[in-house]
């Protein structure tokens, strides 16, 4: 336990010394809320969206920040640790290499919580975005989304050999997946077929889960199943394929 605590503390310090890591996961999402919220039209109800722009975009920004964390930070850190022989070095100590993975996941889970608080807090305080009323439904959406994304990140860390490959794969996944989350074109403006496909993609389902939770108190059954299925498939894949060296 002493070793795990110390490892987690060290991983935290390292995260906070890595400007790329904390910029994209902590600063950028909050900045995006402020930028979007500062556009006057985003604070008026848009007929196409059926809501104010800032209300529409807040859950998308939240999901985006989790995606940046899990698709870029998780795989590049772990692949880098393997590439540099850090995991190998740990495997000849009494604590073994698995704990550094746990420490990384702990750090990323905490960062996800902090980002959530910052994004929702900024949106609520500065732009009157309504906070989730059903905490349980929101928590379920949060856990499923972050769990599913970290499983994808771990899976990437399992199959990719170099940090360069990890970064490229992160970009290759992030931009198309964010399309279905509705960051470029609101889902409401997509053709029906495309919008339906989107609901079954990881980030499309994640945004849906948060919107469901806000509208009805709970993510819908089908969304829960989609998110859980991704988490299980990639989680099991990662567990089977992950190599320490």
């Amino acid at each position, binding site marked *: 336990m002493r070793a795990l605590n*110390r490892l987690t503390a*060290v991983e935290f310090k390292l995260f906070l*010394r890595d400007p790329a890591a904390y910029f994209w996961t902590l600063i950028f999402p909050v900045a995006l809320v402020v930028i979007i919220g500062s556009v006057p039209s985003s604070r008026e109800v848009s007929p196409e969206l059926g809501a104010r722009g800032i209300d529409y975009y807040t859950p998308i920004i939240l999901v985006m920040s989790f995606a940046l964390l899990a698709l870029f930070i998780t795989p590049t850190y772990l692949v880098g640790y393997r590439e540099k022989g*850090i995991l*190998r*070095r740990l495997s*000849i100590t*009494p604590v073994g290499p698995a704990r550094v993975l746990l420490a990384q996941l702990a750090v990323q889970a905490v960062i996800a919580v902090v980002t959530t608080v910052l994004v929702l807090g900024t949106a609520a305080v500065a732009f009157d975005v309504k906070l989730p009323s059903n905490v349980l439904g929101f928590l379920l959406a949060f856990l499923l989304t972050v769990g599913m994304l970290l499983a994808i990140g771990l899976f990437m860390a399992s199959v990719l050999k170099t940090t360069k490959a990890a970064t490229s794969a992160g970009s290759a996944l992030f931009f198309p997946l964010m399309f279905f989350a509705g960051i470029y074109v609101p889902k409401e403006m997509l053709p029906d077929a495309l919008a339906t496909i989107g609901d079954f993609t990881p980030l499309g389902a994640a945004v849906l889960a948060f919107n469901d939770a806000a509208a009805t108190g709970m993510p819908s059954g089908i969304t829960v199943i989609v998110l859980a299925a991704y988490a299980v498939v990639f989680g099991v894949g990662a567990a089977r394929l992950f190599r320490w060296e």
Partner: protein
Amino acid sequence: MSVIVVSELRKQYDHKVVVDGLSFEVEEGEIFGILGPNGAGKTTTVECIAGLRKPDGGTISVHGLDPQRDGTKLHQIVGMQMQQSAMPDKLRVAEAMELYASFYDNPVDWRALMADLGLKEKADSAYEKLSGGQKQRLSIALALVGSPKVAILDELTTGLDPGARRDTWELIEQVRDRGITVLLVTHFMEEAERLCDRLAIIDGGKIIALDTPTGLVAKVDQDQKVRFRPGSTLDDELLTVLPEVTSVERHHQQVVVTGTGNLMHAVTSVLAQHQIVALDLRSEQATLDDAFIALTGRRFDHAAE
């Protein structure tokens, strides 16, 4: 007392046999060298001893522990400095020391160890800012922080400049002086000759010789050579009649005397008798390099190719 006992160790990758029936024992408190060209199976051998790789055959015992079965206990008493292992770029020296100390039941005082290894001034430096020599010293420190009984040092000085290499040699002697048994993997003859109490020469996954460095050199029944420039005229006959001398050659002004036994004494006595001054007098004796050539029939530097 033998603290490491390796018996009939075998390991293959795919279908290539890398370690082919190695057996040796390491005594408590000695510096035991494993010397051989690249690809000889040195690293694989020590990685099996450290529990990092599973042997395909044979047995290993380290202070009575089986590296595969008693992994966690083994890692408490074996510290290893590995080839190609780094720390996170932004991790600072003191943080790495404190972190690794937390992994062990009975760590040494990591601050004192850090100072002993000359890293005190670098305590707050990030790993990425350290020089090659400093990284190696940190790596040794991390191998020792758990107060191990056995330290495995793998290609410690590869990539270091000659100055840093010599400093590292002193460090290794200090490690032994702490009472730690050292298993040293190297492909530098000079390093093995200088540091090791005993050493095994490995080639093609097999031990081809195991002895003290002096013992290995003595086994090479090589002629000695004495070279000098005579200060005045010298008749070769004066030397060729000596029983120790087998041949006398001249290269320009230089005389090269080849022979056996106490050649140097025999040659200098004759020269003194005839009042001939020997300029640039030099004696050449067999080295570990010659021993390697004699044992394998190949030059050491070229053995890897």
